[in-house]
């Protein structure tokens, strides 16, 4: 049984800092906020706007938080139409690609649920974090085998992001492997 790869909070912060550095270089809008800042400033920038086939503009908001209980990052997200109407869980499900749906429906802890954002106190959708170590451990072990630098956050987000409509530009991976 392989030892699970836990992510300490300081390491999480370090990988996020590296991630933000690259985000600033390519201008795709990620920001680092402390809990104090998160509560004071309006969130305008951690958004991605996407036009759907029916030319409805949808606003997605993604937050990466650290769970000290599971010692892994957790992806919180919400979506709304431009007029402010929020997405329901049903709407979110419709946006999930078929290839991910069966996997997500297998268990209550592999799925997307509505949760309270631990800092903002507002409803967000979350991918349950308890299985994160299961899929991250092989990724990290493998990178070590081939002596390749890996940014935990970049790798993790590239796995969970696409499930919920967040696709990272490839340049993140190149940036990660270039860091010492």
């Amino acid at each position, binding site marked *: 049984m392989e030892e699970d790869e836990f992510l300490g909070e300081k390491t999480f912060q370090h990988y996020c800092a590296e991630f933000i550095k690259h985000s600033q270089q390519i201008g795709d809008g990620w920001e680092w906020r402390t*809990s104090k800042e998160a*509560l004071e400033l309006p969130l305008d920038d951690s958004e991605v706007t996407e036009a759907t086939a029916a030319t409805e503009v949808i606003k997605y908001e993604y937050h990466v938080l650290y769970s*000290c*209980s*599971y010692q892994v990052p957790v992806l919180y997200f919400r979506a709304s139409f431009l007029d402010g109407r*929020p997405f*329901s*869980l049903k709407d979110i499900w419709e946006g999930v690609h078929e290839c991910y749906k069966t996997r997500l429906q297998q268990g*209550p*802890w592999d799925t997307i*649920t*509505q*949760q*309270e954002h*631990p*800092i903002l*106190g*507002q*409803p967000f959708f979350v991918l*349950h974090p*308890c299985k994160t170590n299961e899929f991250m451990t092989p990724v990290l072990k493998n990178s070590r085998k081939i002596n390749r630098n890996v940014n935990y956050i970049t790798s993790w987000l590239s796995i969970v992001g696409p499930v919920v409509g967040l696709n990272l530009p490839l340049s993140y991976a190149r940036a990660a492997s270039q860091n010492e």
Partner: protein
Amino acid sequence: MTDDKDVLRDVWFGRIPTCFTLYQDEITEREAEPYYLLLPRVSYLTLVTDKVKKHFQKVMRQEDISEIWFEHEGTPLKWHYPIGLLFDLLASSSALPWNITVHFKGFPEKDLLHCPSKDTIEAHFMSCVKEADALKHKSQVINEMQKKDHKQLWMGLHNDRFDQFWAINRKLMEYPAEESGFRYIPFRIYQTTTERPFIQKLFRPVATDGQLHTLGDLLKEVCPSAIAPEDGERKNQVMIHGIEPMLETPLQWLSEHLSYPDNFLHISIIPQPTD
């Protein structure tokens, strides 16, 4: 110790006398009488209010009914917080019964999670239990249990069956013989005066020198304003299940005896009542 077992029962069977009133702007065919109910402190609003829903829906038309939600003095009540926590945090200094307003329209999307079915409550409850065990035992105990044991925890809560619940929950309250307690204590501290919904951090029940950490130690470390000032009159009450435990109480003991069924200690910091 029989005394300690009594504490478990007292916590489980705690009740809050509540008066439910229909929001005045809801459209009714006849006048809606208020509905009185004793709410279990350890349960969740949407789990125990079927009778309330039925009572008010009797005087309403189907088309005027959407998802039910509850509010106290203008504050939407988060169904995913245990009832006892909501009361202690928002209404403990007011006279009984607890007055809750019932709504069937205008669900506050920005404030409340949706609760489409009992399955949602079960998923939320089990998610909390799992997180608590991640902190206490690195998830080893909960993961070793079978699905039917998980189900028994939920059914015990759902059906108000103390023995059924604790037959399984006692395993979540054990720790290795060579240790003095859990790995970390599952707790959340709530204050209405802050924006942040709660404080949750990693905190060990035992210090490096082997001394048991107390409730006071926890607060000093993660929420010092709760017990300020140390000399003189304290500004706040520290409340769990409607009582103020002594700050000298070992945290490990509190975790084993005063946790909610989700295995978390939900602690309210409220201003001292001014009467």
